[in-house]
């Protein structure tokens, strides 16, 4: 790809980027959110037409106008969110769209033979007759990889493939990727996890703010150098924090039960009890969909608890409304910042007052006090260093993910509260923003607030928290201190194959 340029409304997403992938190479693509990685890949797949530059495959210039064309050229992608039909079997998903038929009748046996051969060749063991919905995330990913191989892809793009995996699954995936490269496939590995890039990639191209920064040989670069190139300044990779000053119990959850919706007898959250003290960061680790989401919903009042008791500073809040909990008690950085955290079509100022627009500070006899809203917003933008083109009037939709998250963080930190619930606060963010958010969480802890962190990222759990709870299948299976546990052990707890105290 040479001199690729792509302009979007109000932003130049790719500014004269050149990127070269050698045969049999694993080439990492590194960059912050909004650096232009996704745009570059979308150009490669024909989802966007570039405003400048050209693409060459095996020395020949090609025009890629749609994803089918990309497939035909042997370019395949494993998306971060898998594109699989849940109720189809693995085999059906693999052949979907390129089925062999004879007289309109599916010829699955030929396909099965080919897939079998491929999975033996690359060590990708998958039960082809199992439905996707019954598979683990790691297995589903293998189906996605087989899908690309089945289409004879020579260039494979992995978009943040490890984000959803446990450490054990990550090891396995890295082995698979290396095997693929050894067999002559060329691989683009998109990530912002430096350790993985060190483990897997030969070369690494770094993008920053839509511009090409450098292509380096990974073996010759340190993590510190890579992150500096990515962020444009020196970054602390380790979270610096002192011993916690643990105070009295702030949040007390007792025997919380949440039934699964529908007729299912199973409880999504099964008799869970735990405490969070003032001045303490407690994290709940676990693989997605093991009840963490429901615990948060119950704590914030967005979903009723079936039974059990939630109290905050000794007060029973189980039956409080969302607004009452929000008001001076609980701050909540939600899991999905676009769905819950922000109103994307509003400007920053209007988003800052989302929970407190009716208070005397921003409202006067029912009329919004635009002066004080503007003043407050300007302060927050300055204090939290939120990059926005038009200050308080910036429409949030036009901001980068990291700055959107900073805006939520600013709002939730600044509102008075006793408990901060942060759900995957760094998801999809770059090293610089992650560092910043972790620092803020620690600062908040040192101010004596209770913090409940829900995260799927083991690094984050190990680095930031003072105590770790692991949830599996709706229950808390471990309650440990980070210094007493290895990432490997945590992985085992998360998979339910180990139960601790």
């Amino acid at each position, binding site marked *: 790809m040479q001199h690729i340029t792509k302009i979007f409304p109000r932003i130049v997403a790719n500014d004269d980027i050149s990127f070269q992938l050698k045969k049999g190479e694993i080439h990492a693509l590194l960059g912050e959110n909004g650096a232009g990685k996704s745009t570059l890949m979308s150009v490669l797949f024909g989802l966007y037409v570039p405003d400048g530059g050209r693409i060459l495959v095996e020395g020949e210039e090609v025009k890629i106008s749609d994803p089918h064309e990309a497939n035909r050229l042997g370019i395949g992608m494993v998306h971060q969110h898998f594109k699989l039909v849940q109720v189809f079997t693995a085999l059906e998903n693999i052949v979907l769209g390129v089925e062999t038929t004879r007289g309109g009748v599916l010829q699955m046996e030929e396909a099965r033979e080919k897939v079998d051969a491929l999975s033996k060749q690359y060590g990708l063991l998958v039960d082809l007759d199992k439905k996707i919905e019954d598979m683990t995330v790691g297995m589903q990913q293998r189906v996605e990889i087989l899908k690309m191989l089945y289409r004879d892809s020579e260039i494979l793009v992995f978009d943040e493939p490890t984000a959803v995996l446990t450490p054990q699954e990550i090891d396995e995936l890295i082995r698979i990727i290396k095997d693929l490269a050894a067999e002559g496939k060329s691989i683009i590995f998109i990530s912002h996890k430096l350790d993985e890039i060190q483990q897997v990639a030969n070369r690494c191209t770094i993008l920053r703010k839509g511009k090409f920064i450098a292509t380096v040989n990974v073996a010759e670069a340190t993590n510190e150098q890579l992150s500096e190139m990515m962020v444009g300044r020196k970054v602390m990779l380790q979270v610096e924090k002192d011993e916690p000053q643990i105070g009295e119990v702030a949040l007390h959850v007792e025997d919380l039960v949440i039934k699964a919706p529908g007729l299912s007898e199973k409880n999504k959250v099964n008799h869970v009890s735990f405490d969070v003290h003032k001045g303490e960061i407690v994290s709940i680790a676990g693989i997605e969909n093991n009840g963490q989401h429901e615990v948060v919903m119950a704590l914030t009042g967005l979903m009723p608890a079936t039974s059990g008791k939630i109290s905050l500073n000794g007060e029973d809040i189980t039956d409080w*409304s969302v607004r009452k*909990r929000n008001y001076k008690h609980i701050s909540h950085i939600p899991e999905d910042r676009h769905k*819950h955290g922000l109103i994307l079509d509003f400007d920053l100022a209007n988003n800052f007052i989302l929970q407190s627009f009716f208070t005397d500070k921003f409202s006067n006899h029912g009329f919004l006090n635009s002066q004080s809203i503007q003043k407050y917003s300007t302060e927050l933008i300055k204090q939290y260093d939120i990059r926005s083109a038009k200050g308080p009037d910036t429409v949030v939709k036009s901001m980068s993910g990291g700055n959107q998250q900073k805006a939520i963080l600013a709002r939730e930190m600044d509102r008075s509260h006793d408990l901060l619930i942060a759900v995957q606060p760094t998801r999809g963010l770059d090293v610089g923003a992650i560092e910043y958010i972790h620092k803020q969480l620690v600062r908040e802890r040192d101010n004596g607030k209770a913090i409940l962190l829900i995260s799927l990222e083991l690094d984050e759990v190990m680095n930031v928290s003072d105590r770790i709870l692991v949830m599996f299948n709706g229950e808390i299976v471990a309650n440990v201190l980070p210094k007493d546990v290895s990432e490997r052990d945590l992985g085992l707890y998360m998979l339910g194959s180990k139960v601790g105290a």
Partner: protein
Amino acid sequence: MKKLISKILNNDAFSNTLASIISIVLGLIVGLVVMVIFNRAGAWPGFLVMLQGGFSDGARGIGQVLYYTTPLILVGLAVGFSFQTGLFNIGVIGQFTIAAYVAIIIGGKLTMPASIHWIVALIGASLAGVIWAAVPGILKAYFRVSEIISCIMMNYIALYLVNQLVHDTHYESTTAMSAYVKKTALMPKLGLDKIFPGSTVNSGLFIAIIVAILVYILLYKTSFGYSLRCCGLNRDASKYAGINETRNIIIVMLISGFIAGLAGGILYLSAITKNYKISELFITEPGYGIPVALLGMSHPIGIIFSSLFIAYIIVGGSLMQGYGFPVETVGIITAVLIYFSAFSLVFKNKVNKFALHFSYKESQKTDSLKNE
């Protein structure tokens, strides 16, 4: 100079307006094509007459444009207000119809001094609209029944109920219409009949404009309006913020119904000659609510201008009959315009994109100048 252009191009209000104008121009062109198909010889002169609209008939014509504008502003507001808060009050027609009946009955049956008769009739009409809108509002808020379905049901109930009630209670068999309302119940003219002699424009116009301003203030300046817009733009985030959606849904429907009822009252109290015609078809005026709201981008002030435009075309269209066009053609052309008004958002994006490329190129130029 270039900088100024790029600044103007990037202005939101400007791109909104430009997008609406592009929609209108394209709609007119397609409308002309339709006219050529119907009647080649009369197409061009007919088209010109339509464009001249109200102006071709002097002060009376302008007055008539304003007269048609009045209910359009209100029904447009009723629909646009519900749009902005994430609801779709398609029941404006029913609320309008039932309100018209209440206005006719109060205006025709009761005896009161002129200074208050029309006010009482208007209040009665608005309340009727409120009641009619409350039903779908409550169903939506408490039972999650789609307001679109229940509104359509309420529309038919209103139509047949009012047909029956007019026939039974206040009927003039010679015209097959409702009987007259009393002179005391007619909307005051406030001197508008002096400025636009021969037209039926009345003080309802001022009421409509005041309501538009009030809706604007409510939506954009009050904390309640803020919470309504939150619900409209992102229901999940509103829930997360602790905003009481159930209450908001009901209040929005009540206000929307109030405005629709006001429109029905004002129209049927506008002149002694304006009577309710018993028919299997819905009244036409409230049907313009959706296109008016769309063309005005659901913004209260935009709705005033889109109402003016549609009213202008209606008056112009009625003059086209002199060139051999059936009155239905006018309907087709307005429909085409309306169809294009739905594309306003598409054009808005195009305008934005153009503005962006323009500013990008400019900044490149200034950058290279700096470098030299």
